[in-house]
């Protein structure tokens, strides 16, 4: 949680937290594990009513934010969702909405109204089976045809692909990257649900076999402009992952500290053992530093200054330390911490997925070094 929220932002944050606590307590999160759709559509509409899908959409397209730094507002929601391990296609929907708002054509932008109202979910089909593509070298190709493109390739780990109304597909075209906004019922497009470590969010494989599209499916101009879009999409995605993990780590630490006060061993609360106290001290430092890294990344993204560097700094730090913190908290709980009925593993599962997708901490360290010319 940020320590510099405006009154509006604080009210927005508090509303999000109350909504999550009331509507999606962890018992409900567990029930939703069995839903193929991940979360009920009508719940998603209530979430949208709180503004969760409108922040990056400008007012003239039906959206609106709480402050003049919508990216920061968005990170507030991610932090609270992380605390509650709240399901729902929050990340891809906002990432893709942002790009449609910035680079989409007017026809595409009409879709945003449904996004803002929670009718439509969006997915970003970018990851490919052989891993990370920070170098934008995708095996999915878009070949120009008469009046359009043929797209072929395989995307995996596409969050919410099976729930979304539209997919944003990132592909290699002859003159650089190109992105296409496709309805999920487009001919030639097969969506197969995948399993995930995260039991809350939904992922799928997207197979594109000779998908024929017109140029009106293009989002923005292929080449450098689209590369900038993809870069921004990645930055927002990683920011949200980090905010989610930082929020989750703070929450996990809170309830573990509480446990350490309540649990007695050898006639004393765990919280009185110095060896554990010192580890809790480290954890508190990791939690605050993780939040600080998210603060820095959100600020950089909002200001448009050195954002890719700060995003990599955040992933490099938060990705590792938030997850280590949770493992330490498991250890503090002892046996009960590795049971299915305890919530800890649900946090760890989600945090581990956030840690690994869109670049591991180690990938981002390498990228950071390269950006700095090292």
């Amino acid at each position: 949680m940020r320590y510099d929220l405006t009154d509006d932002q604080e009210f927005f944050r508090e509303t999000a937290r109350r909504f999550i606590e009331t509507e999606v307590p962890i018992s409900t999160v567990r029930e939703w594990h069995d839903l193929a759709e991940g979360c009920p559509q009508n719940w998603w509409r209530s979430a949208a009513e709180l503004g969760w899908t409108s922040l990056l959409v400008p007012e003239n397209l039906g959206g609106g934010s709480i402050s003049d730094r919508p990216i920061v507002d968005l990170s507030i929601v991610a932090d609270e969702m992380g605390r509650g391990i709240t399901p729902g296609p929050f990340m891809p929907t906002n990432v893709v909405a942002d790009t449609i708002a910035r680079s989409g054509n007017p026809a595409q932008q009409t879709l945003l109204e449904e996004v803002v109202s929670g009718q439509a979910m969006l997915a970003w089909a970018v990851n490919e089976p052989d891993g990370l593509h920070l170098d934008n070298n995708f095996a999915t190709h878009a070949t120009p045809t008469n009046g359009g493109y043929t797209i072929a390739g395989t995307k995996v780990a596409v969050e919410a692909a099976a729930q979304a109304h539209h997919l944003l597909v990132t592909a290699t075209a002859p003159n650089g990257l190109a992105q296409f906004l496709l309805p999920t019922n487009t001919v030639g497009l097969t969506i197969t649900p995948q399993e995930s470590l995260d039991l809350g969010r939904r992922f799928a494989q997207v197979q594109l076999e000779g998908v024929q599209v017109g140029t009106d499916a293009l989002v923005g101009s292929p080449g450098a402009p689209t590369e900038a879009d993809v870069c921004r999409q990645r930055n927002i995605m990683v920011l949200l992952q980090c905010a989610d993990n930082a929020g989750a780590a703070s929450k996990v630490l809170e309830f573990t500290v509480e446990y350490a006060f309540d649990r007695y061993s050898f006639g004393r609360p765990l919280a009185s053992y110095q060896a554990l106290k010192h580890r809790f001290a480290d954890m508190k430092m990791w939690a605050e530093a993780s939040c600080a890294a998210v603060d820095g990344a959100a600020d950089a993204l909002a200001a448009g200054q050195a954002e890719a560097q700060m995003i990599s700094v955040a992933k490099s730090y938060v990705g590792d330390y938030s997850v280590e913190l949770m493992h330490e908290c498991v250890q503090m709980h002892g046996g009960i911490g590795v049971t299915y009925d305890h919530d800890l593993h649900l946090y760890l599962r989600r945090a581990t997925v956030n840690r690994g997708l869109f670049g591991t901490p180690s990938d981002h360290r390498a990228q950071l070094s390269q950006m700095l010319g090292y």
Partner: protein
Amino acid sequence: MTMTDQFIYTEPDPLELAEYREQVQTWMNENMPKRDPLNPWHPSEDDNERSSRNRELQRRLHDAGFAAVCYPKEYGGQSLTVAHQRIIDDVSEGFDMPILFSAPTLSIIGPILLEFGTEEQKQRYIPRFIRGDDLWVQFMSEPSGGSDLAGALTRADKDGDSFVINGSKIWSTFAQRSDFALMLARTNWEVPKHRGLTMFIVPIHQPGIEIHTIKMADGTDEFCQEYFNDLLVPAENVVGKVDDGWTVATRLLFHERAAVGGASPYTQGKMRQRRADSLEDLAVLAAKEPVGDAGNRRQQLGRLETLNRVHRLLSDRVVRGIKGGHLPGPAGSLVRLFHGLVGVEQASVNMDLYGQQALVWDEGASVGDHGVRFVQRQAACIGGGTTEMARNIISERILGMPRELATDKELPFNQVPRNG
């Protein structure tokens, strides 16, 4: 050092050992099933089948004279040395072995019965489990207790020639398929906690015990929780003396640490690694589907290989050190601690090398196990005594540092502060 500890370390003649190796090898080739490397033991295997297969294999070993060879002849063993047992372990790699009997039955329960059991108890129980008839389990931990085993709340109240037991135990492995348990319960509430406990032999399948399996974060359910409701146990089932159960429990913990850390002389057959643990598999995968750059990958695999090898070397060293009097008995905790840290490292490297596939995978693919194991990785630092307890033991009982203040040490147990 107890008699049984002395026994197992006598040094046999090298020539005799070489002969023995040959003999074991020949017999194994002819009589034991080969382990299918593509389908090794896996948690999803049917529990009933697993239990009966282990019992049958143990029986085969027994009938050939290769079961629990360190145990005294009069109780069904062979009175051989630990070196003989290690030969069996070595040779048995690649064969399907009755691994379920290794712990706790042979490596923890057996030594306790040998040391504290009455002659009648020894004759009655030991030959049966060496022959594969009975599987044993420990009823030690309690839901309220964590590492503080001596804080047991399960009560055993004397009633004529029996004890009436009420309470609950947890973290017993595979209890629903076992036959007997060694259980610690409180027989006296008016004295400080270590002085009011008693150890019992409890037949598992009887009225008064209800067993629930516990689903773990990784989906497995080997562990159980038991509820005792006026369970009757005859007084003859007391192991050691009434109210002196902590003496027995302390030795039991000693054997458990040795077994968990890999330093027990009583285990039988090498603990099998799960498929996901195999470094070779990892390496093959890493080469086939590289994640991250090669230098980074080599660092991770090199570190893991280092830790795995040093783990074995440390285990050997600690056994030698205890034997030679260079290290005190509790030094087994060094190996237990190392073991936990290797487990953590293993799960983490594993996960990193599988990358995205371990996070999101095609339905039904097993690659997701690697992600699940990462989430579960602290189990290696919790089960069989936490690494925190190991660190306490090392600092206090190897380095001789002052014991932690235990506010409950001298208080009558019914006045000790409990979970708030």
